[in-house]
């Protein structure tokens, strides 16, 4: 038997290798540090992530050179853009965790190590055309996040969030895996390009087994991106997990799972049958249910959880539209994902600073009352994020929504666009209510701790980066939009 040596382009692998090495280094270093000493660890993590980001931005995805290990690892334009998204999400997760008071007493090495491992898993899931690698990447980041969700070990809510996330997450992985087995059986391959060719050449492979497999995969990925009707776990897990982890969970896994969703959906092509209709219904349900429930929330953290489900719905609109207008929909999705990192992470960062100020660590809507009168900067930043999340100009959220919706309109999905726009209008209510509470209400009393957290400078850095990027992506979107347009090359 001949052994074929796979082609490997180590330079393209570097963005994944760096976080893994960083994670090992952080875990080792932590053993030699005094308890509570964490600034070295934070800096190592940040340097690793920044280096990976630099390598990613400096790399040029060349056609023909993209695939390593026979397509197991794929560095195309799509991958490159998603790497930027995932790495920014991790950088924010590190910065805001360093400023969260609740995490002070916890071991530092494990937290940052797990964040780095999760990052590498998300990157691998986004950068492959092989079903097995999709599964392995998904499990690498899921296993890290199950632990991170229950990181505050003594808090019963954290334990509960961790258990719920674990049980439903691995339940979904079971579905995903069985779907992959059926697709493998029907087409005889786990490589998405080969699957696409065999579906094209051999109509017999488009039978019931393939469609069932695809259906199971939609269930599995639907759980991971928190799309209706598989989003039940999301609000509970997001509320119970430490806020910094919630912020990370609401962005990173979405980027990775949607990447796999796009690749599988596009390579299934016409053989997908009624998958279009299924995804259409899922998109509508996700947006509408999440927005309607979000209106009634009084806890800001839980409201942001429902808001993140609603945004998964808007991203599903892009997924549906990618059937008929691939380029517009994909670039819209990528741009949306990038904007979402900055506005969502920013909002969670403000939330962390507010709960730091209070003795009880509360994140209720009332806790934000009159914030503008005693923390004007914080209130202004939160207002920017809320305006962007609701999709109003002059912020990145507006440009992103505009591109996704016009892609859907271009693809002929008129009703889907109408429903999506109506949903955005509903969403304006609960986002701007928060702004009204901050600016119009009198501050309520209650025990305030005035001493600033030692990690406040990290939070300030995160806030400045988030506000600047949200505004920049809204006012001068053209260069990043060009990048997104160039990144719509799949499998090349």
């Amino acid at each position, binding site marked *: 038997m001949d052994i074929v040596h796979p082609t490997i382009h180590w330079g393209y692998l570097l963005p994944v290798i760096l976080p893994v090495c960083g994670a090992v280094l952080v875990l080792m270093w932590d053993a030699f540090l005094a308890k509570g000493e964490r600034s070295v660890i934070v800096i190592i993590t940040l340097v690793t992530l920044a280096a990976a980001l630099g390598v990613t931005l400096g790399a040029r995805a060349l056609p023909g050179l993209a695939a390593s290990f026979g397509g197991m690892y794929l560095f195309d334009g799509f991958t490159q853009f998603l790497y930027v998204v995932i790495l920014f999400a991790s950088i924010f997760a590190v910065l805001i965790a360093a400023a969260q008071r609740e995490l002070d007493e916890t071991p530092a090495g494990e937290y940052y190590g797990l964040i780095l491992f999760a990052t590498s898993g998300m990157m691998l899931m986004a950068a492959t055309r092989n079903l097995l690698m999709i599964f392995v990447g998904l499990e690498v980041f899921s296993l890290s996040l199950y632990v991170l969700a229950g990181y505050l070990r003594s808090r019963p809510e954290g*334990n*509960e969030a961790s258990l719920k996330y674990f049980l439903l997450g*691995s339940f979904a992985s079971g*579905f995903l895996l069985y779907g992959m*087995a059926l697709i493998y*059986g029907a087409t005889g391959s786990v490589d998405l390009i080969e699957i696409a060719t065999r579906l094209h050449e051999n109509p017999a492979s488009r039978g019931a087994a393939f469609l069932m497999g695809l259906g199971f995969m939609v269930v599995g990925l639907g759980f991971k991106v928190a799309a209706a009707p598989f989003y039940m776990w999301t609000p*509970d897990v997001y509320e119970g997990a430490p806020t910094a982890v919630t912020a990370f969970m609401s962005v990173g896994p979405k980027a990775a799972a949607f990447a796999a969703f796009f690749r599988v959906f596009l390579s299934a092509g016409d053989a997908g049958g009624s998958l279009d209709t299924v995804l259409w219904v899922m998109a509508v349900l996700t947006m509408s249910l999440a927005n309607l429930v979000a209106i009634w929330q009084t806890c800001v953290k839980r409201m942001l959880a429902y808001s993140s489900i609603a945004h998964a719905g808007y991203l599903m609109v892009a997924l549906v539209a990618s059937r008929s207008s691939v380029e517009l929909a994909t670039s819209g999705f990528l741009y949306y994902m990038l904007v979402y990192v900055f506005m969502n992470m920013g909002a969670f960062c403000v939330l962390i600073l507010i709960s730091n100020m209070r003795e009880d660590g509360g994140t209720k809507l009332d806790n934000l009352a009159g914030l503008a009168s005693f923390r004007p900067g914080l209130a202004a930043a939160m207002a920017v994020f809320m305006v962007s999340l609701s999709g109003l100009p002059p912020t990145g959220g507006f440009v992103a929504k505009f591109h996704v919706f016009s892609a859907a309109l271009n693809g002929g999905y008129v009703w889907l666009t109408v429903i999506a726009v109506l949903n955005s209008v509903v969403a304006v209510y609960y986002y701007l209510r928060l702004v009204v509470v901050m600016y119009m209400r009198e501050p309520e009393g209650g025990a305030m701790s005035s001493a600033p957290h030692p990690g406040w400078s990290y939070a300030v850095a995160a806030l400045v980066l988030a506000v600047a990027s949200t505004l920049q992506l809204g006012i001068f979107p053209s260069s990043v939009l060009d990048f997104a347009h160039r990144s719509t090359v799949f499998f090349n």
Partner: protein
Amino acid sequence: MAPLEHYLILSAVLFSLGVVGVVVRRNAIVVILCIELMMNGANLAFVAYGRYLDSMAGQMIVFFVMAVAAAEAAIGLAIVVLIYRNRESTDLDEINLLKL
């Protein structure tokens, strides 16, 4: 050698038993076992297809899935132990601090 269908039916039965178990049973440890059953149903399908198609991919994938399932079991049991320490129960119906 038994035909492919027999293996596939067994794998479908294993998978369905796992799904039903996750939905019906209320003990966290039993639910984790049922998830393992689902994974192994998929594993059997992979191996059977690999043999039938004469392709190595299916048989190789199973090793990866086993490794992942082992890691998952380790983390899952650790979480259950943590819950048991904090509240002396592994009954999923009693784990309801966060409203669903």
